[in-house]
Structure formats: C-alpha cells, structure tokens
C-alpha cells in the first residue's frame, strides 16, 4: 500500500487541487487526473468487489480495458454504475462509490461466498436450482422454484445498480461529414491525420481520452506528442476529445459518443450529458492501438496487480508511482523501459521473465539500472488478502531444472504452462504483469474483417492494413506494430491511402477499381521474441486464477466448459459468460481462447475468436434515444385548429402521428356522456368537426381522369366537373386498399381525399403507378394535406348554418349544391372573404358539407362557423361521436378495411365497375375471394337489448364457442338513435345467412360471452334519405 504521488512529473496541473469524494470521504486530486490515478495517489487500492465471489479488487489498468475498478459515479437519479475509474475524469465535487458490497468494498460480508467458490463454477446455478426440489414435481414446479432462487442469486451477484428514476440528463444527436475519419490520437493516428490534411483532405480525428496522444501519454518525454498535436491543429484537423468511435458501419458510417459535460462539476442546464454523432466519412483510418494483457496465475486478481504499461502511464501522465517495491512478471521485452522508468522514479524493481534468454543487450541494461532479473521464472501465485504483499515464483513442472528446453515445452502446451512453486518468494507492494499485447481489432471486426492469429507476435492481427473496397485502413499498433517508427510509417501510409482513395473517387465517381495497396511496414518487433504465456498452472497446489475478472470467470471454468462439450468459442462465451461483461473481454479473451485451444489440443487459430459488435465501450441508452424522449418520442402532427380545439375543451386522441379531438367534454360529463350528446345533437340539429387529418392529393394533368379510372374500382371516367364521387381503391391482389372521395375541379384537375391512416401510402402508390407502370400518363400528383384544413358541418340544420357564413348564401342552395356537389366559394370572416372549397358529402349520414380552408385561415373561419353552429344549438363533435354515427350507417374505416377484405366483403361490391379493368380487377376474382361464405360486413345487435359487447370479440355459433369463430367485431358503440348498443363486424355469409338466428360475441380473453343478432350494416336511415334533399 505504498503508491504515492511524486512531486514532479506527469501532465497534471498541481496548481489546481480538486476535492473529490470516495464513498463520501473527501480526498484531494489534481486537474488532469483520472479517478483511478487520484485513488492510487491517495492509497485507495481496494476499490471494488467482484461479481460472483465478492473478492477484493483494485485498479488493474489505466484505460477502457479496466476490469477491476468499476465504481458508481454520482447518486440518486444521476447515479451511473459500472464506470471504469481509469477513464473517469476527475472534477470538483465528484462523488464515486464502491459497488456490489455491503457495507462497503473494504469490508464486505458478501466475501463469504468466496469460501464456497469451488461450488460456483460456470453453470452451477442452472445445474443446481433448475428442476429441484423434489424433481418429481416436474418441469412446471421446477421452473417456478428456479425463478424464486434466481431472485436471491441475482441479489448476491452483480455489479452496480442502475437508478430506477427517470434519467434527468439530456442527450442529443449530431450528423457530421468528413473526408477522413481517424480513430485514435496516438502516434499513428496523429500521423495519419496530418498526412491526409497536408494533402487537402478534411479530417476528423477522434480520441476517447480527455488528452491527446494515446500511448504517447505513457512517455516521459512529451515533446513528440506536443509537436504532432500542434501540427494537426495548424492543418485544421477537426479534433474531438472525450469521443469514442463505438461503431463502424457500412458505407463509411461511424457512430461516435461524445461525453459533453460528464467532466464538469456544474454543467450548464442546457448542455447535454452526451452526444451521439453519426459521421459519414469518405475514408476511415482505425488507429486504435493495442492493449496490454495479463496471464492467468494464482490469485491474479489481487489489488496491487496491474498491467506493466498502466504503471508507466500512472507514472508519466499523473506523477503517481504505484509502489515502492515492484515485481514485474513478463514474457516479452515491452516491460523493460517501464522497469527502468519506475526504478528511476525511486522504486525497487524486479523482473520475472518467463524467457530464459532475453539477449545480451536487455540483460545488460537491466543490470545497469540495478533491476533484479529472474529469468525462466514465472509468477505462480500472488499472496496477501486485501493487497498483494508477496509473490511466489514458479518454474515449468516437467523440467524445472532444465530451463533451456523451455521453449519446446511451451510450444507443446500452447502457452498453458504446468508449473510448480519451488519456494522462492519475493516480497512486494505491487505486481505488474505483461502477457503480451492485443491489438484493438474491435472496430475492424465490426466491419467484417476477421482477425488472424499471429503466433510470432502472440496476438490477433488484422489480415491486412488497407481495405480499399471498404475505404478503410488500420494504422499503428492495431496492426501488431510495437515500434514507434513503424507506427509513424504505418500512419503515413494510411493517410496516403485515404488521399489515393479520394483522388480515385474524384476521377472516376464512386465505382472505382480499388487499387490493392500492400503495406510496406514489416514490423520490427522485439529483440527477443515473445514467449507465449497465458496461464501458469500450478500442479498439485491449484490456485484460483481469473480469465475474465468482471464476470469472475476462472481458468477452471473454461476447462469445465470444454469438458462439458461447449467447444465452439461462441458457446464457450455464452456458457461461461467470458467476455460478456462491460469490458467485452478486452483483456481476458485471448487468455480464455488459449486455454480453450489447449484443452481441445488445437492451435489458437483453429479455435478462432468471437466477432466483436458495437458498441466498443458501453453507451447509455439515453444517448441513443437523443432528444426523442417524452413528448418528442415521435413528432406530433397538429391540425391548424389544434389550439382552437383545445381551447374549447377537446380531449385529444392519437390517430397515427395526429392528435385529433376525441370528444368535447362539458362540465361533469364522462366520455360516454359526451359522445352520446354530440352524436344526438348532430342527428337532431347540427355539429362541427375537424377532419383535417384526411389525406388530400391534388391530381393535375391531361390523363388525370384515365389515372383515376385505372386506380379506382368504380367508374370515374364520367364524373362531371363540380361533382365528387366516393371511390374504393384495390391493391394488385384484389383486396381493398383505401377509400375516399375524389372531387373533379376542372377538366384535368381533381382533388382526392384519403383516409387519415393511408394518406402517405396512397400518395406513394399513385407515384409508383405513374413512374413504374404507366409513365405514358401525363399526370402530376402532389400532396396538399398540409395546405388545407378540413371541417365537416353535419346535421339537419347544416345548410342553414352554413348559409349564414357564406358570402353568397345561394352557393349551397339545393339546386346549386345538391348531394355530392363541389363548389368554390368564400366565407366571410374578419370582414374578409376567405376562399374555400366545399363538397356536400356525408360520413355521418346527415346532410353534411366538408369545407376545406387554406390552413392559415382555418381559425378565422372556424370562429365564424362555430358562432353560427352554437347559435343554432349545435355542438362540436369529436372522433368518438363521428365513430358512433358511421357505425350506425355501416360506413367502413380502417378498422374494417384491414387488408383482408374484398370490396364485396365490405358490402361495396355493387360499386365495382364491370365495364372496365382497374388495379385489382383481375385478382379480385380469385375463386377463394368469390366464395359465398366469406365473412361479410354486418351490423350487430345484442339479443338482450340492454346488454353490451366488445370490439374485438369473435362471433361464434352458440354450440361452438371456441377457436377463431365465424366472424369478428370491428367496432361497437352506444347508439342513441337506435336505442341500444350496436356494432359492426364481419360474419361468414353476411347477415342474410344468419337472419333470425343467434350468435355469440365471444370475448375469450375476458371470458365474457354475449348473445347477438346479425342485421344489415345500415342500421340507421338505410336508404340515405337524411343526407339527400
């Protein structure tokens, strides 16, 4: 426990001390710290409890791969669980909490589960609790008991707890475009960005950290980093910090997550917490670097164990020395520079290298700096409870005396080395591990590039550096390049590949022949090759060794899975949950695969690796939702009369994206009171209704008549100018698509209305017909749904009331405006004559007029109409009353025209023309559609008139109330004019087939059955006398 902050070094700002709180205890950090650095500087090394065994855990890395230090940031609604302390930027007043522990991480009663750890292997819960006790109870009971146990188990195991409160933060989305997207601001990324920008390309460079530099941040010498950043800035590279490229998608699309205000102690209220960027890049360069991984050995999860590179990072970036007495366990050259830096910073460093021979030069250097070397040795066990205090060294078991033949041995064992602890112990306060480096191939894998195993470098690498067909290059350490000069060269090459692609695109358009580019960067590698090492397996004295720390997956779990037959990596992953925690196996995957390969006796490349999918690091659901939350979940469509309706007491209902008045409740009225009153008033007097949501289409052209005649099932060729006609459209397959009225305005101009639901569909359908089938027709169609507000005025008094409002009352005389007539006229409003279009058509069955008013005049006209209607004793009516009246009349809506019914089924068969061919006329005559017993539109009365029944109920014969029945009910209402509840629906053969018989309206879900009678769908005013003169 002797990590400490040094007096100098690093790029933190020591002049700005910051107070933060760890489990509510105040500590001091400096500007530029991560939470992990600040915790280390304050000797807080036990910071978490593990998922399953509640084992103490510490800080294991210095980046996104962290699998130990998961903490909760903030509290209450703002609590963010499972945040990696290694990436969390410090700010004044930051509150961080340990998680999955009671009462706190330093003393956790849950640790008792570690004692029973041997029982908790992979699959333990399923095997133990599913189907017991006793087994004879059968599957049904067993499952219930499992579900009961599961709750307890879930409580004991776990990570941080998400808040159940609504997310108080805001998020937003942003689109961006660039010529080149560079992911990662390490030496390769910066070089690539500079190269592309020097050649005139518009470059966007993104970095997940809050400092530029990537691996350069671990270097003591900052000059190269600063120089590259300055150069990129001077070339106007657009640079985004705190921004993670979480996904690469087809066609140059990238998803970025920008953490906008998470690092601020008092962010402005309007500043979003995060911003998701959808970037469209002409070329993408992935310079995502590589991550150092550990290897499995006894108690390799103890606080105080971390990657070697992390220690160098803490030293050179934050001025934090992770220990005084440091042991480094390695199998490669990369730790030697770290060891020297730590030794120079005042620590005593020993290196335990699995390789017996590391070459003269390294050997000499280590000796020069006074670093103790244990070659041909491995760390077999980490001792200490809350913190590592000693390591036990191990040597290969079979021939521990003969270090020379070690490499043969390793090849045979595939890096899983059976060892014995031979008694040497090294006291220490920090154990640094390096088992090699794993390139961050995640983004490339997302684009379908399968990484290949490179046994010489002991890692998965992309098969090539450049993918011109994907407009993608990989630059730097992601290609398995460990040398900084190689990375610079690789970055430059990637930048030039982007330039070449841009030039080709400019020259040839998008269909370029992709020139194959072959990388010239060979990769110098290390002086002494890496010795594959994934697990130090202590023979005879097995120790718990971890592969996936976040999910507490051990080496034994991996072997157990293999023994139980989970031999595919994808199965291994799902059975053990290896690589399924928040780090997605960034550190553990390769170790697990190697163990799997060894257990199966195969080389690693035959086992393969799992496919990485977005997101690269966790991303909050809120960020994906962006601003489309709450009332903006979807756009709201308002009629021009929206506020006018609301001001007059309208209760709104959703109709697609529209809000439509449902009913206008008066004092003390329920919805049923209101709609019955409204319908009654319309039938007896007059009512006014906003029908703006109907689709409206302007059809203009010399072939407009011909087009309508082909689209509608009924005849349109002889519709006179100044008349409207109700029409039904079929689909190609002969089923009804939509209905509505179409008004002939002049020889070549029509105005079509569609149902609210099908407005967009009918418009697209007409365009499809005109452009893909009948492009000889000269017709333009245009949506005018937004141009016109629509109002229906209906009831016996409608003519009289309307006349009061018109400039010229005679325009709606019975002679000039008979049933189905269309007129252009003006309404006097605000001492102006406002133009409007009126048709005498009726949905309610009463004498009625549909009035279309240019939208911006709708309120002025409505004021006038309403004043007249109100004076006449009329009312405003909503969708519910409209529904009642149309049910009474048997008029169909989308509920009846549900995509399954023919024009005959809907009772409109007589309208279909037999003199012409039209869309659907051939296939509507399919034998199946002509059957007499098809369900036909009917009216439905309850046998006991006082009873009611439900929409959606099935119609069954009384002797067979089950299954699908012989029909269904589409709409039900209480009819004042009929005097009881009525409905419409479909029944096999139509109402004539069931005259005088009783059927059952069966609501099988609620088990309520009502006896009903089938009647004609025209339940009120069957001959339409009321709407004619």
């Amino acid at each position: 426990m002797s990590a400490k902050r040094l007096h100098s070094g690093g790029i933190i700002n020591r002049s700005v001390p910051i107070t933060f709180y760890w489990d509510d205890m105040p500590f001091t950090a400096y500007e530029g710290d991560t939470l992990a650095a600040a915790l280390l500087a304050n000797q807080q090394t036990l910071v978490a409890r593990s998922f399953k065994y509640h084992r103490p855990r510490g800080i294991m890395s210095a980046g996104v791969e962290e699998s130990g230090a998961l903490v909760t940031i903030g509290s209450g609604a703002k609590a963010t669980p499972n945040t990696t302390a290694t990436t969390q930027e410090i700010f004044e007043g930051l509150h961080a909490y340990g998680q999955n522990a009671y009462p706190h991480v330093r003393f956790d009663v849950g640790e008792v589960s570690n004692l029973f750890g041997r029982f908790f292997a992979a699959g333990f819960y399923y095997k133990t609790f599913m189907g017991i006790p006793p087994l004879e109870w059968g599957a049904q009971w067993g499952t219930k008991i499992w579900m009961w146990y599961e709750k307890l188990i879930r409580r004991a195991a776990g990570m941080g707890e998400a808040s159940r409160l609504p997310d108080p933060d805001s998020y937003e989305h942003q689109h961006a475009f660039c010529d080149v997207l560079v992911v990662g601001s390490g030496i390769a990324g910066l070089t690539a960005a500079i190269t592309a920008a020097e050649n005139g390309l518009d470059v966007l460079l993104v970095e997940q950290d809050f400092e530029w530099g990537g691996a350069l941040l671990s270097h003591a010498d900052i000059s190269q980093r600063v120089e590259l950043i300055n150069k990129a800035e001077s070339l106007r590279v657009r640079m985004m910090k705190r921004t993670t490229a979480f996904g690469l998608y087809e066609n140059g699309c990238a998803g970025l997550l920008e953490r906008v205000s998470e690092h601020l102690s008092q962010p402005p209220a309007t500043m979003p917490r995060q911003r998701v960027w959808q970037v469209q890049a002409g070329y993408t360069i992935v310079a995502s670097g590589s991550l150092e991984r550990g290897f499995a050995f006894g108690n390799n999860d103890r606080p105080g164990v971390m990657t070697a590179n992390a220690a160098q990072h803490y030293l050179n970036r934050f001025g934090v020395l992770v220990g005084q007495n440091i042991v480094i366990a390695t199998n490669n050259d990369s730790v030697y520079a770290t060891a020297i830096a730590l030794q120079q910073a005042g620590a005593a460093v020993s290196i335990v290298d699995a390789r017996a021979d590391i070459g003269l030069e390294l050997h000499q250097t280590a000796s020069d700096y006074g670093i103790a070397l244990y070659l041909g040795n491995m760390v077999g066990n980490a001792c200490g409870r809350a913190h590592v205090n000693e390591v036990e060294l191990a040597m290969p078991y079979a021939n521990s005396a003969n270090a020379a033949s070690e490499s043969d041995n390793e090849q045979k064992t595939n890096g899983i080395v059976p060892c014995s602890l031979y008694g040497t112990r090294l006291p220490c306060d920090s154990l640094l591990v390096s088992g090699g480096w794993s390139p961050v191939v995640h983004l490339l894998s997302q684009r379908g590039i399968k990484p290949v195993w490179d046994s010489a470098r002991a890692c998965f690498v992309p098969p090539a550096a450049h993918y011109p067909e994907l407009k993608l290059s990989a630059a730097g350490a992601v290609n398995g390049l460990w040398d900084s000069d190689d990375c610079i060269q690789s970055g430059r090459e990637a930048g030039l590949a982007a330039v070449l692609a841009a030039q080709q695109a400019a020259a040839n358009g998008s269909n370029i022949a992709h020139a194959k580019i072959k990388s010239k960067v060979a990769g110098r590698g290390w002086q002494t090759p890496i010795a594959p090492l994934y697990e130090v397996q202590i023979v005879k004295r097995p120790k718990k060794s971890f592969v996936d720390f976040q999910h507490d997956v051990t080496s034994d779990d991996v072997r157990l899975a293999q023994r139980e037959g989970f031999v595919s990596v994808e199965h291994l992953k799902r059975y053990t949950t290896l690589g399924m925690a928040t780090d997605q196996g960034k550190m553990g995957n390769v170790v697990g695969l190697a163990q799997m390969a060894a257990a199966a006796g195969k080389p690693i490349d035959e086992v393969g690796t799992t496919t990485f999918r977005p997101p690269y690091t966790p991303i909050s659901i809120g960020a994906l939702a962006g601003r489309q939350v709450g009332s903006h979940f979807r756009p709201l469509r308002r009629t021009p009369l929206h506020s006018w309706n609301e001001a007059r007491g309208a209760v709104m209902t959703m109709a697609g994206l529209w809000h439509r008045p449902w009913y206008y409740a008066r004092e003390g009225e329920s919805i049923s009171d209101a709609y019955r009153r409204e319908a009654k008033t319309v039938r007896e007097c007059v009512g006014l209704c906003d029908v703006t949501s109907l689709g409206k289409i302007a059809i203009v052209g010399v072939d407009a008549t011909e087009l309508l005649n082909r689209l509608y099932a009924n005849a349109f060729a002889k519709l006179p100018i100044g008349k409207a006609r109700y029409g039904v459209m079929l689909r190609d397959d002969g089923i009804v698509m939509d209905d509505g009225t179409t008004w002939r305005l002049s020889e070549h101009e029509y105005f079509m209305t569609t149902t609210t639901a099908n407005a967009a569909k009918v418009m697209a359908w007409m365009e499809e017909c005109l452009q893909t089938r009948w492009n000889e027709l000269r017709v333009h169609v245009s949506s005018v749904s937004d141009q016109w507000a629509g109002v229906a005025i209906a009831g016996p008094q409608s003519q009289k009331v309307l006349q009061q409002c018109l400039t010229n009352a005679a325009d709606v005389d019975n002679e000039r405006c008979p049933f189905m007539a269309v007129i252009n006229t003006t309404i006097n409003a605000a001492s102006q004559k406002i133009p409007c279009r009126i048709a005498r058509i009726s949905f309610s069955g009463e004498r009625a007029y549909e009035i279309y008013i240019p939208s911006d005049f709708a309120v002025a006209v409505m004021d006038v109409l309403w004043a007249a209607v109100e004076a006449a004793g009329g009312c405003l009516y909503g969708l519910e009353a409209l529904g009642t009246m149309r049910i009474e009349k048997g008029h169909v809506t989308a509920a009846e025209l549900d995509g399954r019914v023919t024009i005959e089924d809907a009772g409109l068969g007589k309208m279909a023309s037999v003199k012409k061919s039209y869309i659907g006329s051939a296939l509507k005559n399919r034998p199946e559609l002509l059957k007499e017993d098809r369900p036909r539109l009917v009216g439905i009365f309850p046998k006991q008139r006082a009873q009611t029944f439900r929409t959606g109920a099935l119609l069954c014969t009384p002797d067979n109330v089950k299954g699908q029945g012989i029909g269904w009910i589409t709409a039900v209402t209480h009819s004042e004019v009929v005097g009881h509840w009525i409905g419409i629906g479909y029944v096999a053969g139509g109402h004539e087939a069931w005259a005088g018989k009783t059927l059952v309206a069966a609501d099988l879900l609620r088990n309520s059955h009502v006896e009903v009678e089938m009647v004609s769908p025209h339940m009120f005013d069957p001959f339409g006398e009321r709407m004619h003169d």
Partner: protein
Amino acid sequence: MTNTKSNSSITRQGALASVRPGVYESGQWVAESASGAVDITIAITQNLNLQQITFWQESAAVLNQQLQTHLGLSIPEPLKTQHAHGATLLRLEPFKCWLVGGSKTADALSSLLSLDIEAASVLDLSHARTHISISGQPAADLLNRHLAIDLREKSFLAHSVASTVFDHVGTTLYRSENKNGAPHYELLLPRTFALSLWEQLLTSASASRTTITHQ
C-alpha cells in the same frame, strides 16, 4: 379551378404564429440588451408565398422562356436554386419546382396558368409549408443535429437545395447568399409538423444565443 391567391390584406395565422419573438439563451428568454452578441438568428415567415410549378420534358423550354420573361429566372439544375427579385425557384423533383417568396409573382403565374395544362401547371402551397430562415455561424451545426445533409462549406454552397428528413419528417432545406458574413439557410417544414419540429429545433438551439423574429 383557380388557386387561392395570396392576399396580404387577410391576416394569416401560421403554424408558428404563437412563437414568442425575442432572444433565447440557455433555455431561457433573456433581455435583448444583455449582451450584443447573437449566434443564431431565426426568422419565421408570416405570409409565405409558395407556388408549385410542374412541367414536362417537352415543355421545359416554354416554361423557361416564361420564367425568364416574367421573373428573370430559369428552371434550376437539380439540387440548385435560382434567385431574382426576392423570389427563389427551387428544383425539387425532375418535373417540379417551387417558387418561394416574391411579391411580383402574380403576373408570371397567371401567364403560366394560361399555358396549356400539358405544358405547365401551378399549385398554391402557401399554406402547406412553414418557412423559417436560420443564419449565423453555428447554423449548420444546429441543422445537423436534425438532418443528415453534408453542409460543409465546400459541399453545400449558396443556391443549393435538398429535400431530406428532419427528425423523420420530410423537409426542404436551401441555402441563400451569406447574411452578415454568416451562412444563411432556409427551411420549409410541413405545416402540420412545424410546431413539433420547431420545439425540437429550439431545444437544440438553446446552447447558442438565438434571436427569434417574425418576418
């Protein structure tokens, strides 16, 4: 049948008529005098004149002549606009243009109407769209919060037009000449969605200092 002519003597109530003019910053309305600096200016057009002109391949030449004679405009190239005498002609579809604004378009339109319907037709859409103009340095960023059009200086020059989606709603965007040295964009929103989209736009704009006016 005739199209409804825009008549300035009748008070029109647009979809955004209720929007309060003023200066909006950090989610609040602030006094205009607080600081001189304004990042974005949004102007809501009150009496939009929007006429759709449709034509055919064979009649393009005739239409062009008429447009030249009466408005000093010709049918723009795809994705381009033409501007003269306060009116802007947008090419939205192969055979459809929109004429936005302008007070002297009545003559031209009546002349177009006199062409045979086979040659060209005019449709009044003045009430079908809500027009707002957005200018200022952060205007492109603001728009890109909602629509996925490449608005980089080199890609979307003045006199460009694009029909696209604004939060899933079909919308037309075009760019005029810079205003006070800053980019100047114009949006045509479907009238019935305009208020909903406006609310979204204003939320996104709250990070900037925004002046809202009616014009």
